[in-house]
């Protein structure tokens, strides 16, 4: 039954009053879906290190993939605040599931929508929206993480198309993707302006994706290495409007925007768990929530969540007005994910020994958030982006 779930979110400053009826309805429907379908399986998926593939059709049916892209491509046509609320609710469940939706929407559908030909859009977007095709985004390389301009993957024009060679790493969805957006240099390896995007079906000979093993974070998400060994593509595999490092960075800005909301969701989940536990756990004859030390923890959490919610919302309103600059997105990603890491850690500590068990969620969020802190521009890189915004001087 929709709406009867126990988790009711965190809304201390009447955020709901700042949302439209549709925005609230979108939030509620995703929240109910997470309660019904994700929460019952996430613990087991995390322990077993597997992505819950069986949930993909349901996610597609709800319209979670590329939800802020237009209806003519089979998407929901939502505004950016509603899109952000989807990311918040998915990450309330698990950062890995939110990552899956972020990649499919912001890093695969968005570049096809923004840099693709009409034919590419018509072919790929409805298939990605419906979950018939699963996408991944190949930008990062083993030696080029924070510095993607330095990539050494190449795309060489041939008589009848393109020849791609290189290695991509830390690729979410990489091993289950049926199609990859691969970024490669069409010119000299020192020429970042020659970076272009390519649509690469995973079935293309020479393309292999294999899982990276031994992860202690994002265990319910696939993270993979992609090898491109003489991958031959037709001429129309290139995203015609992609031009230079700016193109993949525009995709990352979209994804980072969603992550700023996702951090709020993970923090809300941890706070909610900590608050309930503090009321129920009796020690020294009274609930631990009646001790000053836990009250301070909870007060800090509520304060930081409330600030982060308002930050995300205003960023969303700016994005709908076309004013969410990359630096503004950096500020929100940096603040909200760091905030979520802190809250997850404090929540885990409040939960005492129970906090290390998979039955509780805070430690899973804590472990996940260490990846979220590091990916899509590390926290430190966002410091430098903001530093450059403030001073006009690049420190990287």
């Amino acid at each position, binding site marked *: *039954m*929709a*709406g*009867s*779930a*126990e988790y*009711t979110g965190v809304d201390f400053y009447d955020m709901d009053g700042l949302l439209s*009826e*549709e925005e609230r*309805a*979108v939030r509620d*429907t995703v929240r*109910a*879906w997470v309660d*019904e379908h994700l929460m019952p399986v996430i613990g087991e998926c995390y322990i077993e290190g597997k992505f819950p593939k069986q949930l993909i059709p349901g996610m597609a*049916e*709800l*319209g*979670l993939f590329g*939800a802020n892209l237009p*209806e003519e491509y089979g998407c*929901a*046509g*939502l505004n950016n605040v*509603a899109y952000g609320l*989807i990311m918040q609710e998915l990450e309330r469940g698990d950062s890995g599931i939110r990552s899956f939706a972020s990649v499919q929407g912001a890093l695969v559908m968005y570049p096809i929508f923004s840099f693709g030909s009409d034919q590419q859009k018509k072919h790929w977007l409805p298939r990605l929206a419906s979950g018939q095709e699963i996408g991944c985004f190949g930008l990062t390389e083993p030696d080029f993480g924070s510095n993607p301009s330095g990539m050494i993957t190449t795309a060489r024009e041939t008589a009848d198309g393109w020849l791609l060679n290189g290695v991509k790493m830390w690729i979410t969805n990489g091993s289950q993707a049926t199609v990859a957006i691969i970024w490669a240099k069409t010119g000299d390896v020192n020429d970042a302006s020659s970076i272009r995007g390519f649509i690469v079906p995973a079935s293309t000979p020479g393309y292999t994706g294999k899982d990276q093993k031994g992860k202690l974070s994002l265990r319910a998400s696939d993270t993979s290495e992609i090898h491109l060994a003489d991958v031959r593509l037709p001429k129309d595999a290139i995203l015609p409007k992609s031009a230079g490092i700016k193109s993949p960075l525009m995709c990352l800005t979209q994804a980072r925007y969603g992550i700023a909301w996702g951090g709020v969701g993970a923090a809300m989940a941890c706070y909610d768990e900590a608050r309930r536990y503090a009321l129920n756990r009796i020690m020294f004859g009274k609930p631990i929530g009646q001790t000053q030390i836990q009250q301070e923890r909870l007060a800090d959490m509520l304060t930081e969540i409330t600030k982060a919610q308002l930050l995300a919302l205003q960023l969303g309103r700016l994005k709908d007005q076309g004013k969410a600059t990359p630096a503004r997105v950096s500020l929100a990603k940096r603040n909200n994910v760091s905030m979520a890491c802190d809250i997850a850690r404090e929540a885990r500590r409040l939960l005492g020994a129970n906090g290390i068990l998979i039955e509780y969620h805070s430690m899973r969020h804590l472990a996940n958030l260490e990846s979220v802190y590091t990916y899509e521009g590390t926290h430190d890189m966002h410091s430098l982006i903001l530093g450059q915004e403030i001073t006009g001087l690049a420190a990287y």
Partner: protein
Amino acid sequence: MKIAVCLRRTPDTTAKIVIAAGGTSIDETGVKFVPNPYDEYAIEAAIALKEKAGAGETVVVALGADSVQETLRTALAMGIDRAVHLQGNASADGLENARALADHVRGGGYDLVLFGKLAVDDYGQQTGAMVAELLELPCATAITMLEIADGRATVEREVEGGVEQATCALPAVFTCDKGLNNPRLPSLKGIMAARKKPFDIAPVTVAAGAVTVASLVLPPERAAGRIVGEGAAAVPALMQLLVSDAKVI
């Protein structure tokens, strides 16, 4: 097949209820409202029947203040085709509300009129059966199975120790129980489409009727439990208390 679903707006079952000043209504400040959970079975049944038939129309009808419009749009977002808001203040007397709903449904050419078996706020359980009587239509309450074939409905209801099956000709009125189906969530596209669907507002005047709410009182706080001991050693004391204090054995 034309199907009407009569919908109520009720507080979310997890909402913390506060009684408003005056003591005869609840304070709606900060309370989240949802479609009455049993009405969701009726909505799902209507949508599924139309999907199966491949044709027809589903209409959701609600009586109440303007706040009910958001609830109606939730039904549209789930997939109902059209909404009607009977704009007026509902009475505490179920019969008067039933009259207003029956007046609207009568002459609408409906093959089926569906309700939830009860609304989770007042547990009245009256309106569906009363509407059936006012329309002089067959009625089955609390159905857990519904099949339509050749202009007849077959329904099942859970009865003590078993299941009762009944059939009747259409048109008919049914109230829906848990178990009938698994209501879908509104999809994101459905939410966006809801705004564009036909939405009629018809002012109605509902008579006060014979029932008034004298007062609303929250249930008393549950007393704290008592731990009489641990393990097997506690069993005799527990048994004695179950007999002497709780008087359940």
